[in-house]
C-alpha cells in the first residue's frame, strides 16, 4: 500500500488563532482511515483545508503525487478528492436529481446518467425522491444524497466529515454499512467521526486529534476502545 494522501506540518489559522498547529498524517490507497477527537480539536478545519475551502498558512498536502495546499476547491475536485461536508450541505431548493448532476459538474464524459442510475440502485430512496427538493428529505436521506453527490465526481478519495452527526442509531448503522460497501468497491475513505465505536469497526487505521495536533496514530486495537472513546470525547487530560 502507498499513501494516497500525505499531509505534513499543516497549519491553518483563523486570524491569529491556529486551529491546526502542524498536522501530519497519511491516508493509504484503498483504506478507510479515521480521525477521532473532541469538539474543537480542528477536525472540520482539517477537512475544509484539504478540500480547499480554507487556505493553510503553511505545510503541504500531497494527493496522488500532486500538491493540493492552497489550491481552490474546484481544482481539488478535479484532482480526485471529494468532501461530504459536515451537516451535509445539500442544495435544499434543487431536486435530488439536480443535486447529483451538480456533483458531476466537472465531468464531460457521457456516463453521468449511468452513474446516477447506479447510485439510485445503491440508494433506492433517492430514486423515489429524485424530483423532490433536497430540503424536503429527512436527515438520513440528505446524508445519503450528500454521499451520492460526492461520488458523482468519481473521486479517488472520499472525505467524510461526521456523516453520523444528528442521525438516529438505525440510520447511523445504514450510513456505516454504506461506508463499508464503498470501501469494498475500492474507494479510499478519510472519515472524521465522533462515533468512535462505529468508526473503529470499519477503519484500518485511525488518528486521534487534540487541540490542533495529532496525538495518536495506530490501528484499531492498538488502544483499548474505552481509552480511545475517552480521549476522543474528553481529550487526554487526566480525569
Amino acid at each position, binding site marked *: 500500500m502507498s499513501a494516497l494522501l500525505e499531509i505534513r506540518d499543516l497549519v491553518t489559522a483563523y486570524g491569529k488563532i491556529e486551529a491546526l498547529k502542524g498536522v501530519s498524517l497519511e491516508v493509504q490507497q484503498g483504506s478507510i482511515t479515521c480521525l477521532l477527537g473532541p469538539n474543537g480539536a480542528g477536525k472540520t478545519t482539517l477537512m475544509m483545508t484539504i478540500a480547499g475551502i480554507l487556505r493553510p498558512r503553511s505545510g503541504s498536502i500531497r494527493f496522488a503525487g500532486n500538491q493540493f495546499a492552497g489550491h481552490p*476547491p474546484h481544482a481539488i475536485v478535479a484532482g480526485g478528492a471529494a*468532501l461530504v461536508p459536515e451537516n451535509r450541505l445539500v442544495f435544499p*431548493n434543487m431536486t435530488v436529481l439536480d443535486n447529483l448532476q451538480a456533483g458531476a*459538474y466537472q465531468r464531460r464524459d457521457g456516463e453521468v446518467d449511468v452513474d446516477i442510475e447506479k447510485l439510485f440502485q445503491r440508494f433506492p430512496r433517492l430514486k423515489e425522491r429524485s424530483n423532490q427538493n433536497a430540503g424536503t428529505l429527512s436527515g438520513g436521506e440528505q446524508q445519503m444524497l450528500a454521499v451520492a453527490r460526492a461520488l458523482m465526481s468519481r473521486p479517488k478519495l472520499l472525505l467524510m466529515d461526521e456523516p453520523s452527526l444528528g442521525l438516529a442509531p438505525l440510520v447511523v448503522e445504514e450510513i456505516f454499512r454504506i461506508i463499508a460497501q464503498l470501501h469494498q468497491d475500492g474507494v479510499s475513505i478519510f472519515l472524521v467521526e465522533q462515533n468512535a465505536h462505529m468508526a473503529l469497526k470499519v477503519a484500518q487505521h485511525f488518528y486521534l486529534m487534540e487541540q490542533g495536533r495529532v496525538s495518536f496514530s495506530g490501528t484499531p486495537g492498538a488502544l483499548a476502545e474505552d481509552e480511545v472513546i475517552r480521549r476522543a470525547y474528553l481529550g487526554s487530560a487526566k480525569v
Partner: protein
Amino acid sequence: MIFDLIQNTFDGLAMGASYALLAVGFTLIFGVLRRVNLSYGPSIMFGAYCATWVHLNFQAGLLALALVTIAGAALAGAYVERLCFAPHTQGSAIAAMVASFALWMQFEEVVTLVMPKHLYDFPPMFEGEPLAFGPLGMRVEALVMLACALAICFALHRLLYRSRFGLAVRAVIDAPVAAQLAGINVPRILGLVFLLASSIGGLAGWLIVSTHTQITPMLGMWSTLKGLLAMMIGGLGSLPGAVIGGLALGILEAHGQWFLGPQARDLIVYLLLFVLLAWRPRWMTTQSAS
C-alpha cells in the same frame, strides 16, 4: 373610464416589462452574491451613454445602438465585479456595497466629462403613429418592450434549467460552499452572472431610453431605484418575483399618474413599498431563486 383603465394597464404593463428586465438583472446578482450592487443602474447608464456617443459621432442603426448599449453595460458590469465584488467574496458585504457606490460616482463623472450637456437626444426606437384599436392606442415601443421581456424571461428560464451553466448558477444561489465542494468554479460563475445580468440591464436601458428618446446621467440612479423597487416588491432573490414586481410597479405607476398626477406617481410606489416592508407577506420573505 373603462377604456382609461385598460389603456393605463396596458401602458403600465409595457413600462413594467422593462422594469421587470431591470429587476431580473438585479436579482441575478443579488441571488449569487447576496449583496446589493448599487452600481447596477449606473453601469446601464454608462452603456446608454456609449450608444449616445456612437450615435453623435457615427451613422449607426438602431440595432447597432442597442448592441453598443448592451456591450457598454456588460463592460461596466464586469469592471464593477472585478473592483467591488471579486475581492470580497469572503464577507464584508458593506465594503462591497460602498465600493459599488463609489463606482456609481465614477460612472457619472466619466459621462459628464465626456458629454457635458445635461440632456442628449437618443434616437427613437420607432417613429410614427401608435397602432389604434378603436378607442385604445398601442405604442409600437410598448409591444417591443413586452416582447423583449417575454423572450428574455423564456431564454433565461431555459438557460437556468436546461444548461450546465444554469445548473452551476442555481447551485451557487442555493448553497455557495456546497457549490465549491461540488467542483464548481464559483468566482468564474459570479463573473459570468455579472456579465449576463449587466447585459440584460443594458437591453432594458436601451428599451427605456429609445422610448423616452432622451438621456441624462440620472438614468443611473433611476435604473437602480426601479430595479431595486421591483426586486423588493417581488421578494428579494426570486426571479419570477422580479418579473411580477416589475409589472406591478409599472401598472401602479401608470394608474397613479393618470388618476393622481405625476407628483403622486412615485409617492404611491413608495407607500406600497412601505406597506409591504411593514407587513412582510410570505412571498417577500422566502429567499429562493427557483
